[in-house]
Every structure is written in structure tokens, then in C-alpha cells.
């Protein structure tokens, strides 16, 4: 397993790629996946794409707040999520819609959150994830702490944490990797290097040739993978998880990908990047690549794709309906979760608010 990390030492300018842009698989490197599982990967990616597009539409129609699209980043999100064990946990940033829904978060929760409805923030029991983290990079330390706890408790679980290339500039990234190295914590750092932090390109974030090589300075393995190749993403994450589970400590995965859309719905990428660059990356679309492979192997046909799309659309519509049916929280909901027991001072403040908004409270009984 660790051979993969030796073989793809980032200091030797290597990047793991298993499925190329024409859908040709490198059989030697291909991870052991039953044929039946791979079409499922495409199904999930199509679902994410439909869910993403819907969110963008809802935002434009004023039915959703600011939204951060994952367009183009489906392969690393799915590949990494699929490589986790059932009991493993992850800490997302704000862009990991596909990781979240693959790992069991209802899509309607994701929608509710971006719609600005607090009720969406509650992660159901049994879904092993922590809330979205908006302050860039801050969740990295939490993952290290959680992995450290798992190690102290001798639980055989691994913790993954997602962040962008911009996050690698924050102090928290460096502190997190340093702690993880020192503690040999069972944590997998997954950097989705989508080339931009809002308008700032990678070369303005770091003078290093790769992000993966930063692991070396902290005393553990890093690996650079083609982030648009779901097989490479799966294989590297699986190896990192297996290594961590066996007591081998942390790994940093740099998934080289591209943000095809805007940073969020509030951003206009035309100000800082050329369409030609976007077009070039579009040719490397992770969905097209996987579809080519599956078709060549005759694992799917037109019917499959049409059905998967229809099914995705139906699930998305269902999630929107569910999310829009949820009433925004009444004043007590906003106060209730500050402390386990509401202190008298907050009760007073709440009372003054419910005087002003009695209707809202009545509605909920």
C-alpha cells in the first residue's frame, strides 16, 4: 500500500493518474473495484451535477442564498468519499456537496443550509460528518484533534478533512499538519486544488512546485493525484486510509482539479481568468472521462445514462420540495442552541424578541 506513496513521491514530480482523458484505464494501477460499482460512481456524479445546477438556478431565482458550486470537482469528492470506511468521519469545508450526500447527508439539508434556514444545519445521527466550515482552513485542526482522540481511544477509525488550495496559506494548515506529523494522527488531508482561491491563482498562494510536497516538511507522505480521475482519487484515498488505520499516520493528498464555475454565486470569474483556460479544463471533465471508460467497457449504455439523469433530476426536485416545505426557524430556535441550558439573560432577550414576533412563535405551537 505504502508503495503507492513511494512510487508517487511528489518530490520526484510525479502525479498519480489511472484513467486518462480518453477513458483509457491503466490496468496496473487500477484499484480493486467490482465492475458493478463503477457505474454507481457515475450515477452519483450525475446526481451531484444535477443538484449543483439546481442550486445555481435556485440562487438566480432568489430561492437560495450565496452558493458554492462543486462543478468540475466531482471525481475527487466521490473517489475520496467512496474510499472511506463506514465508521470513518470527515470534516468538510463548504464545497463538498457530493462527499456529504454520498456519506448520507440528505440533499435537502445541504439546500436548507444554503437557503439560509438554520434547520438544515442539523446533521442526522449516523451521518459521520461535522458541519460546514466557512472560515478557510480552520477545520483542519479539528480533524487532527479528532484523529488524535481516536488514536487515544484506540478506535480503528480515520478522519478526513477537506480544504482548498487557498487554505494551505493559512497558519491553521501548517499547525494542523505539524501536529498530525508529531502525533502520527490517523488523519487524511484532502486538498482540492482547484487552482484558485476566489481570484487568486495557485502561484500567488505558494512558491512551492506542488502542495503535496509540503507533507514532506512535516514528516509524512504526500501524494499528488489527477483530481479529475475518480480511480486515482479513490486509490490514493484508500491507500491513505488503510495506512492511517494500520497506524502509519497522516497523509496529504493534493487532488489537481479545476473549478469550472465561479467561486460562489457572488463571484465573477471573468475578471481574473480567461475562458480559454476554462475550456481547456472542460476537456478534462471527470464525468466525461468516466463515461467514456464505462461505455468502452460496455458497462453502461445510452439507456443507463438517460435513466441515471432522470433519476437524479427526480431526487433533486424531491429535495427542493422538502427543503422549501420547511418553515424558517422561530425565534426560540435561534436561542436554544447557545448553551445546553438557556441562561436567564438569554431568556430575557428571547422574551423581548417574541414580543415583537408573536406570530412566528404561535405558528409552531
Amino acid at each position, binding site marked *: 500500500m505504502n508503495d503507492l506513496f513511494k512510487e508517487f513521491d511528489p518530490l520526484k514530480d510525479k502525479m498519480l493518474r489511472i484513467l486518462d482523458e480518453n477513458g483509457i484505464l491503466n490496468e496496473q494501477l487500477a484499484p480493486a473495484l467490482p465492475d458493478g460499482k463503477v457505474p454507481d460512481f457515475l450515477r452519483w456524479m450525475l446526481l451531484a451535477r444535477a443538484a449543483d445546477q439546481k442550486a445555481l438556478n435556485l440562487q438566480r431565482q432568489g430561492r437560495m442564498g450565496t452558493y458554492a458550486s462543486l462543478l468540475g470537482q466531482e471525481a475527487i469528492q466521490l473517489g475520496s468519499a467512496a474510499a472511506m470506511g463506514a465508521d470513518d468521519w470527515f470534516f468538510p469545508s463548504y464545497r463538498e456537496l457530493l462527499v456529504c450526500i454520498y456519506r448520507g447527508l440528505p440533499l435537502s439539508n445541504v439546500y436548507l443550509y444554503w437557503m439560509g434556514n438554520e434547520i438544515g444545519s442539523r446533521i442526522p445521527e449516523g451521518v459521520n460528518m461535522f458541519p460546514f466550515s*466557512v472560515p478557510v482552513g480552520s477545520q483542519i485542526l479539528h480533524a487532527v484533534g479528532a484523529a488524535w482522540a481516536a488514536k487515544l481511544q484506540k478506535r480503528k477509525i480515520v478522519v478526513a478533512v477537506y480544504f482548498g488550495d487557498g487554505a494551505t496559506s493559512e497558519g491553521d494548515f501548517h499547525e494542523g499538519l505539524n501536529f498530525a506529523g508529531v502525533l502520527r494522527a490517523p488523519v487524511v488531508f484532502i486538498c482540492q486544488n482547484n487552482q484558485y482561491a476566489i*481570484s487568486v491563482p495557485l502561484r500567488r498562494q505558494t512558491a512551492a512546485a506542488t502542495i503535496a510536497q509540503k507533507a514532506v516538511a512535516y514528516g509524512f507522505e504526500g501524494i499528488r493525484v489527477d483530481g479529475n480521475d475518480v480511480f486515482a482519487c479513490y486509490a490514493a484515498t484508500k491507500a491513505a486510509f488503510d495506512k492511517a488505520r494500520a497506524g502509519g499516520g497522516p497523509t496529504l493528498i493534493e487532488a489537481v482539479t479545476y473549478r469550472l464555475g465561479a467561486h460562489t454565486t457572488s463571484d465573477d470569474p471573468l*475578471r481574473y481568468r480567461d475562458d480559454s483556460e476554462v475550456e481547456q479544463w472542460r476537456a478534462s471533465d471527470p464525468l466525461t472521462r468516466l463515461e467514456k471508460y464505462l461505455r468502452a467497457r460496455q458497462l453502461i449504455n445510452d439507456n443507463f445514462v438517460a435513466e441515471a439523469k432522470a433519476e437524479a433530476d427526480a431526487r433533486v426536485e424531491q429535495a427542493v420540495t422538502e427543503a422549501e416545505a420547511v418553515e424558517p*426557524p422561530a425565534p426560540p430556535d435561534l436561542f436554544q442552541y447557545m448553551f445546553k441550558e438557556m441562561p436567564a439573560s438569554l431568556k430575557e432577550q428571547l422574551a423581548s*424578541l417574541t414580543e415583537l414576533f408573536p406570530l412566528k412563535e404561535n405558528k409552531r405551537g
Partner: protein
Amino acid sequence: MNLVEAVNSALREEMERDDRVMVLGEDVGRAGGVFRATEGLQKLFGEDRVVDTPLAESGIVGTAIGLALFGMRPVAEIQFMGFIYPAFDQIISHAGRMRNRSRGRFSVPLVIRAPYGGGIHAPEHHSESTEAIFAHTPGIKVVIPSNPYDAKGLLISAIRDPDPVVFLEPKRLYRAIKAEVPDGDYEVPIGNAAVAREGEQVTLIAWGSMVPIASDAADALAEEGIDVELIDVRTVTPLDSETIIESVKKTGRVVVVHEAPKTCGFGAEIIAMINERAFLSLSAPPQRVTGFDIVFPLLKSEHLYLPSVERISAAVRRVMEF
């Protein structure tokens, strides 16, 4: 021009006037800032003076302190006030102490600009108003304009100020109001509150994004026959207590409005100061209208959090009827 254009204009003119002035932060260059406050500046002044930094607030403010110590006049942008906390260590541990620590030999003529406050349906962590934390930090000035004219004049003053200034911009007002703003040089001095509206019966005190709401409340109350004097604090620290005390002595009644949570909000400081200096002029206990001691809610609930004309009017009636 509107408030964000006024900020842009102050930056541009100060950069033209003084080549030590530079702008640094996340997305300030190519993109012109996420609110377009630095729009066009990189084209005019180049990449060395309008710098897209790595995404690292402690890095931005910490290096800006070094730049300032070595003779530059850095204006650092923190994209949203909710993301200033990684830089807090640098602000509190170094920017605010350097003059004192070096017994006056070194100073940090640094401006840290940040959009603050809610009301624009932004995501989590994008709507906080935590000016009180900075006001509580020795050695830092905290300035919060409420209109385009003041924004330009105060920012020019802040850039020329020999000490570190945290300059908070009410983002819900960036494009909400237009006003006459002169081209060219003028200063609105730091440390001076403004009497935004003269009145006899009650003093309403506000700053930043709460000033237009307080002003609407004053209009509404005028119709009920209540004559409100509105003070725009403009500089939270150092506070212009004179203007406030003078007004309180005249009206004998006070309501302070702020968006930040109630507990240890800056309203408490103002009321304490009034109690110390004008207790015998008071005809009613001073009141606060504030945000609540809760995490700023997501967009569907932010109207429940933010002080409104109704809440302000109710508080004013309370002090009138006391």
C-alpha cells in the same frame, strides 16, 4: 457617489499623493476586492502597491506591521470582519503595543479595513459586528463611517494617522446610499462624533449601519411628536464623549443602538460613561437596542436579529414615558 466608491476614491487619492501608501489583502488586486472597494487600483498603481496576498489574515496583518515599521503606509483589507480573527493576535499583541513597547521610538501607521455587519443575506461568518473587541484593545483606534462623505474623509484621516486604525465599513450601506462626495483632499477627523440630527427630547446614539435605521426611527417618532437628537459616533475609540455628554445634558434621555450582541457591546461603555459624567442630568435610565447574545443567524432569520425601526421606537417611547 456611494460608500464603496468613497472608499475607493480615498484609497486612490492617498496612493497618488503618497507613494508609501499600499494596499494588500485577499482578492484586492485583479478582482478589485469582493465588494469592489479596490477596483481599478492595481491597474493604476501596479502589483507592488496593490497586492493580492496569499489567503492568510495573520500573514496580511503581521507583514503589514513590518511594512509600516519600515516606513510604508499599508492599508490591509480583511475580506469580511468575521475572518479577522486569525489576525487578532497580530493586532492585539503587536500593532497596538509597538509604540508603547518601544517607548515611542517605533509606531505602526497601519489601517486595517474590513466590511462588517449583517443585512445583506450573506452566508455564515459574514455578518458579525465585533467592534467592541477591538475597542477593548489598547493602542487601536476603531472607526466606523455611516455615509459616503464620512467614509472618504475618515479613511484619509486613518491613512495619515500615525497609529493603527481598524476601519470598519458597514457593508449593507456600501451601495444603499448616495451622497455628494468632494473630489480631492479633505479629512474628517478621527475622534469626533457628529450630531446627525438635532433634537430636544431624547438622544439616540448609533454608528455605522445602524445610523440610517436610527434616523428612520427618528422620522417615525417625529410623527408621534417625539423630538430626537441623533448622534453618529463615527469613531468608536477614541470616543468623543463631549458631544455625547452635551447632548445628554440637553435631552436627559438616551437610547444606544448597535448591531452587535448586547453583552459587553460598545453601548454598555457609552452608558457607563454617561453615568459617570452626566448622571444627574438623566430623567430616565438609558436603554440599549442591540443584537442578541446569539450567533448571527443564517439569512432566513437575520431580520429577527437586527435592530429595527420598531425596536428602536419602542425603546425611545420607554425612556420618554419613564
